[in-house]
């Protein structure tokens, strides 16, 4: 079961059968928790729990991690910028919020095995180089302070990927639409159907966008454009044609939708969303865990 959770999705597992609104609400609650998090220990605990959850409910870890792979560059960029430019006050408050974590980390060096092989000798932070020049400050502490938001971002993306991988996109958008119905959008003349359909069409359009960009690129190169020699011209051609393509697509799809009686109001769905006992149980456990996580880590373990 552990191995199968690594490689395959079992659509019969409990999590797949949850109402999409339950999953979206869970994502919202957990995102709020994570945003407010200041402790590395609690984040690592949360991450561990997420992987355990994926194993227990046969959600393929490899598939989820594959969806995150394209974002590695962005993670690295965020880390680098924070690492170099993080302000001293943020580092100090980070260290103060994570005293226990650093104490545990530094205490590793006292274990005999680590002393014998001189592993983790760098854990004695005072011996490590520290660089400061103007607003730039680089040290082990800034390294961890820079890594912290990347870890938060990683967990948020992981949770979102779990939701999108385990839910039919149309049902997810329908769930979003039903949740938007509870917001006072009508006061601002915004229809929840319009909003959710916009999200859905944007997601659907992304593969078309890549295909169109590829066609434009191939067409330009077939007429003699060498991208490496004229990158600015290439970007101009690509951006102009892509924008035209997006505008034309929007115009055509909106005509097609109007032609099929779309008004933005009163739209029903081929799918029926119904909460069942598993949804209520899941929501109850979610709030229980959130309560535990918030109060225990914030007030007792730091």
């Amino acid at each position, binding site marked *: 079961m552990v191995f199968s959770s690594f490689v395959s999705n079992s659509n019969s597992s409990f999590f797949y059968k949850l109402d999409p609104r339950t999953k979206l609400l869970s994502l919202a609650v957990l995102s709020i928790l994570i945003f407010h998090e200041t402790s590395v220990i609690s984040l690592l605990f949360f991450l561990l729990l997420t992987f355990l959850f994926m194993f227990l409910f046969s959600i393929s870890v490899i598939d989820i991690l594959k969806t995150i792979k394209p974002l590695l560059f962005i993670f690295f960029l965020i880390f680098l910028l924070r690492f170099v430019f993080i302000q001293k006050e943020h580092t100090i408050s980070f260290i103060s919020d994570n005293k226990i974590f650093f104490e545990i980390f530094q205490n590793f060096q006292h274990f005999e095995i680590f002393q014998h092989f001189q592993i983790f000798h760098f854990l004695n932070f005072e011996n490590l180089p520290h660089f400061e020049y103007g607003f730039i400050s680089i040290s082990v502490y800034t390294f961890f302070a820079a890594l912290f938001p990347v870890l938060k971002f990683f967990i948020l993306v992981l949770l979102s990927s779990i939701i999108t991988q385990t839910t*039919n*996109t*149309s049902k997810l958008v329908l769930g979003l639409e039903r949740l938007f119905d509870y917001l006072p959008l009508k006061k601002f003349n915004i229809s929840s159907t319009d909003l959710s*359909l916009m999200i*859905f*069409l944007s997601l*659907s359009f992304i*593969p*078309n966008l890549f295909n169109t960009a590829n066609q434009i690129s191939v067409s330009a190169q077939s007429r003699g454009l060498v991208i490496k020699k004229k990158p600015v011209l290439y970007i101009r051609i690509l951006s102009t044609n892509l924008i035209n393509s997006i505008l034309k*697509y929007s115009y*055509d*799809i909106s*005509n*097609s*939708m*109007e*032609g*099929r*009686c*779309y*008004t933005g109001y*009163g*739209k*029903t*769905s*081929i*799918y*029926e969303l119904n909460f069942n006992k598993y949804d209520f149980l899941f929501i109850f456990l979610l709030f229980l865990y959130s309560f535990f996580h918030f109060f225990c880590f914030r007030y007792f373990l730091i």
Partner: protein
Amino acid sequence: MTSEKTKPIISLSNVNFEHKPGSFKLSDISFDIFPGTFVILTGPNGSGKSTLGLLLNGIYKPISGKVVIDGMSTSDKSKLPDIRKKVGIVFQNPYIQFVGNTVEEDVAFGPENLGLSSKEIKKRVKSALNAVGMSGYENRNPVDLSGGEAQKVAIAGVLATNPEVIVFDEVTSMLDLKSSKQILNIVNNLKSQGKTIVFICHDPRPISNADKIYTVSAGKIVFSGTYSEYILSGKYPVSDITELLLHFKKNGYPVDVLLKDPKTVYSHLAEVLNLNREKD
């Protein structure tokens, strides 16, 4: 052929339209479309056929004149939802019409907009896909379908809203011969079920059972008549007339004359067509 004494379902009176000032214009368009009829709008590229098609569905509104669908003017914004329930439109490129991740979801889009229940939506989707011969394709992604299959799904998407009039805007232009014939069969079946068909195309030759043909050129109606009148008007190419005469010959008509020039061809065809009418 339906009696022309009944009330028209679509009526255009002195319609003028242009996209923006100084651009291409539709000028003084007037005609009626009667329930249950098969009408062709034909003409060269850029003549305004597709623009006319979008006027029939209320997507475009005329600058002057009136487009009335079953007593409702397209200029009346409050009537547009009801007009679009009456008149469905299928576009040339099926791939720009898809809004669902699966064929089933896409065809369901129209009935969902009508506020129908989930059960009724599933029933309509099944019926629409059966009508176009695409049962079994429910879980396929529409963008992965071939041109002919995609066009059938696009037609099913409009059929599911159960309109009285269906406008087909050059639906066979991007298709091969086999797929075009399949689409035309579907169109003819819909006509036999009592739907009013408005078929926009460059070439009306494959559609010999049309009740009326209007030719649009440079934004004006330059020809209006029956299919036979269209053939005799000189717009039908001579080589195709020869094919037509061979067809008549196979069906027992006296086509034995040596055809030397276009004048002979046309006059002989008129004789054959008159004989055809007498037979009826």
